[in-house]
């Protein structure tokens, strides 16, 4: 399945684009996606934290991703 991942802040700068489309195995988990992205973009592994959001909610590590989910990579937030 194809997943589209939106990127923000320093994660967007590390990857060099504001979204990524990647092919993932069915049943790919949030943790699996993070592992794959950290391998492809090692600078992501140096961040203080990195979360996956699915449909506007923070996703637990074992959450399964689906093709039509709105997926985003959330580097350490610093609003306020």
């Amino acid at each position: 399945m194809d997943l589209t991942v939106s990127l923000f802040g320093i994660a967007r700068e590390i990857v060099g684009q504001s979204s990524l489309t990647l092919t993932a195995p069915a049943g790919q988990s949030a943790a699996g996606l993070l592992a794959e992205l950290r391998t492809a973009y090692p600078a992501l592994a140096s961040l203080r934290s990195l979360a996956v959001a699915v449909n506007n909610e923070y996703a637990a590590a074992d959450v399964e991703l689906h093709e039509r989910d709105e997926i985003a990579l959330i580097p350490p937030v610093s609003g306020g």
Partner: protein
Amino acid sequence: MTDQPSFPMLIDLTDQPIDVAAVLHAAESDEAGAVNAFIGTVRNRSEGRRVVRLHYEAYPPMALHQLRRVAEMALEKWPMLRQVAVSHRHGTLEIGDVAVVVAVSTPHRADSFAACEYIIDTLKEVVPIWKKEEYEDGTVWVAAHP
């Protein structure tokens, strides 16, 4: 699940200057004896470096959703809350600009201080907004690295 608020609240994300008075007004209630507000502004120094300006980036749909969640969590902890109003700005901000306003009202003042502090503290932990500080000689994404 719906994004509709379960009680009166103003939740706003804007790339325009925040109308502070309007946010305070939104927090008023005839049932409240206290309106408490936090106003976050852009500071000219950070860890000893002179800050020229700030760039805020947001993930708008999730930021709005999480702001509502924060307000609803505050309501669970302080059921006496009468109004919650939050406005956060994004885009490029200059020194002294208002970046965020949180305003709440409660019948008595102690609850309003506590609820307002909880909302801004929790906002800074969970709402997907990112701040990049611009110095005379470079930029840094705040808190990105350990």
